[in-house]
């Protein structure tokens, strides 16, 4: 066992350890989650905004330094913050009887975390259309730069589960990567008939399937948290499921053929077919249909979370780490196949 070998293998493990520590240990940036009551009438109103994050986590924080402003069209409406606590903020506001737009966005200016935003937080019922009268209006306070340190961005609905980005996405990348190896191996098998290509293909599909199943599992957990359901009928998800089923079929095919010497060629044909279907189902089809899945405006997901620098610092190592782990598992299976072949053909 050469030292270079051990280097990349344990390097991958170390990277994953770093990803775990950083991934779970980094705090989340604060964000506004929800507003209540949704419907407001002109006049006096008591507002509640639920928020997550450090500024709100302490009991008994003062509203000092916090400012809440509601925006309708281009005009701003003032509010009076009454409390800041673990639930978020409470405020009192005078709702005018004419507004440029009945939908109100909420901006919360915080002393250390910059400006938090919640779009379409409130709707005004029973007000006319027109500019906000002077007595209700206000100007925006200064935007302070957030002093948040190393922290993960806040995304609505996703909140803390953004950490799953370091598991789910790299796992699918790893699967693609290793299935690609399998595809090339199957092409080689068809061209030359050399059994060594067949070993590579089988090892690749087996390893890729593990990561595909993990990808489905992490995705399902994520869906339960963000969309409320373990599974939805969605082009991306359906494509992923079919792909995993396809490769399972590959293993079943190999098992059914047993020791038939044509296993290699037949399996290779099926694998080529499966990979082409994978590309179509997971990369082509979802781009032309609407999908709930993040990142489906033509991109496989790199830009879907407006990757923060802090996220990037953990995401890229995660991709490399999971890739290295996947490749290690692939080489182990490959060596097993080769050994088996050698022992059987002696």
């Amino acid at each position, binding site marked *: *066992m050469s030292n270079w070998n051990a280097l990349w*293998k*344990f390097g991958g*493990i170390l990277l*994953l*350890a770093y990803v*775990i*520590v950083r991934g*779970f*240990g980094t*705090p*989340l940036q604060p964000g506004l*989650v*929800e507003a*209540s009551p949704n419907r407001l009438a002109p006049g006096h109103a008591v507002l509640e905004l*639920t*928020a*997550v*994050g*450090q500024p*709100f*986590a*302490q009991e008994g924080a003062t509203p000092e330094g916090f400012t809440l402003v509601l925006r309708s069209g281009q005009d701003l409406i003032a509010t009076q913050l009454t409390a800041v606590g*673990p*639930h*978020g903020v409470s405020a009192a506001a005078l709702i005018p009887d004419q507004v440029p737009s009945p939908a109100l966005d909420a901006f919360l200016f915080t002393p250390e975390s910059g400006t938090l935003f919640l779009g379409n937080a409130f709707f005004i019922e029973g007000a006319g259309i027109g500019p906000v009268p002077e007595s209700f209006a206000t100007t925006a306070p200064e935007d302070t730069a957030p002093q948040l340190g190393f922290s993960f961005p806040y995304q609505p609905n996703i*909140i*803390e589960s953004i950490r799953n980005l370091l598991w789910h996405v790299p796992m699918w990348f790893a699967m693609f990567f290793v299935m690609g190896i399998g595809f090339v191996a199957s092409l080689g098998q068809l061209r030359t008939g050399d059994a060594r290509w067949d070993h590579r293909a089988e090892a690749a599909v087996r390893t890729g399937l593990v990561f595909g199943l993990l990808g489905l599992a992490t995705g399902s957990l994520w869906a339960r948290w963000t969309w409320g359901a373990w599974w939805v009928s969605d082009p991306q998800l359906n494509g992923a499921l079919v792909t995993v089923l396809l490769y399972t079929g590959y293993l079943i095919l190999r098992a059914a053929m047993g020791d038939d010497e044509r296993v290699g060629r037949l399996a290779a044909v099926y694998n080529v077919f499966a990979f082409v279907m994978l590309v179509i189902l997971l990369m082509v089809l979802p781009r032309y249909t609407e999908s709930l899945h993040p990142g489906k405006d033509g991109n496989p997901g790199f830009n879907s979370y407006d990757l923060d620098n802090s996220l990037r610092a953990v995401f890229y190592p995660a991709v490399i780490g999971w890739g290295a*782990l996947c490749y*290690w*598992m692939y080489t*182990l299976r490959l*060596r*097993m196949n080769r*050994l088996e072949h*050698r*022992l059987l053909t*002696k």
Partner: protein
Amino acid sequence: MNTAMMSTLILNVLQGFFFGSGKAHVVTGVALIILAGIAWSLWRMDRRLTTLERDVNDSPS
């Protein structure tokens, strides 16, 4: 809507809870242990394969 508010309430309490009482550390620790276990079993398989390969190579009959 109520459940979302409930969950965020729990979340916020969790946040202070999570880091304050070390729950984040528990999760991290568990994950690291699992990772170590996986790494160790892979390494073991690796070494066994190397030994087997050497045996097969040395005695080709």
